[in-house]
């Protein structure tokens, strides 16, 4: 190194600087591409999924309200409203699961919620319908009703 003349040393320094600059530019480009990809996924998959999930959650709250009206105040229309809102909830969830670009594990989770939500709707409609038809049966069916209440608390659509 000590044998190099001053000119060679200057060129070597410039070379190191240029090499560092090039490497830094390449890394910046790679990072930019990754960021762009993340932003694209966010705008094309995650943001619409969040919006649809919110729709599904709102529909689920309306389902619960409809069932509550049917059971607590004996409002027969509550069951029909709950059924309609239940279909809206499942449709919103299915559209979330079908969003291209959504991470596979998230998509699987949504499919699981669609399945359990559908089961809940069927069971709740049958149970609350039978209580509505025969209000005096509420005492005998309260364990099943409590189990459904427990399901509502444990199942989190936003997970």
């Amino acid at each position, binding site marked *: 190194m000590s044998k190099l003349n001053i000119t060679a040393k200057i060129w070597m320094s410039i070379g190191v600087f240029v090499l560092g600059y090039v490497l830094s530019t390449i890394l910046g480009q790679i990072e930019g591409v990754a960021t762009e990809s993340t932003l694209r996924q966010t705008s094309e998959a995650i943001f619409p999924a969040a919006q649809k999930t919110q729709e599904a959650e709102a529909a689920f709250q309306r389902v619960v309200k409809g*069932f509550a009206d049917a*059971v*607590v*105040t004996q409002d027969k229309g509550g069951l029909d409203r709950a059924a309609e809102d239940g279909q809206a909830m499942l449709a919103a969830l299915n559209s979330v699961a079908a969003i291209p670009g959504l991470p596979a594990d998230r998509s699987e989770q949504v499919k699981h919620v669609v399945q359990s939500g559908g089961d809940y709707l069927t069971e709740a409609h049958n149970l609350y319908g039978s209580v509505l038809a025969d209000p005096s049966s*509420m*005492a005998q069916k*309260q364990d099943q009703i*409590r189990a459904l*209440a427990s399901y509502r*608390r444990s199942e989190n659509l936003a997970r």
Partner: protein
Amino acid sequence: MRHLRGHILAGVLLVMAAGTAQASDVKIIANPGLADASVSSEDLKGVFLATKTSLANGSHVEPVLLKSGATHEAFLKQFLGKSDSALETYYRSLVFTGKGSMPKTVASDAEMVSYVAKTKGAIGYVSGAAPTEGVKVVEVK
């Protein structure tokens, strides 16, 4: 005019007297195992509205209600401040949300006395004229 006022006053007094008589026609009864001879009206209301499962002394209690009738209506009005339909809705709401259960209901005073006598912690009510053998009549303070 004076006579009319007198009649109205007498009528009002009669209605008030009838209300008092109806209220006092309800006896609160409990299983003989209950330690206290009296309960506070707050405790009683809490027990029948399922917000309390035990009295101030820690005794576990289970409310028992009549299905219908004048005694039932009088009890609800005097101690719970609710109508029968409002109470029914209230209990349905508790069951729907999983926060409580429908209370035990019986059809008559005799059935009430029989159930309360044999069920530990049971607390209910009967009409003032009903025999209360085997149960403890509890004073409400």
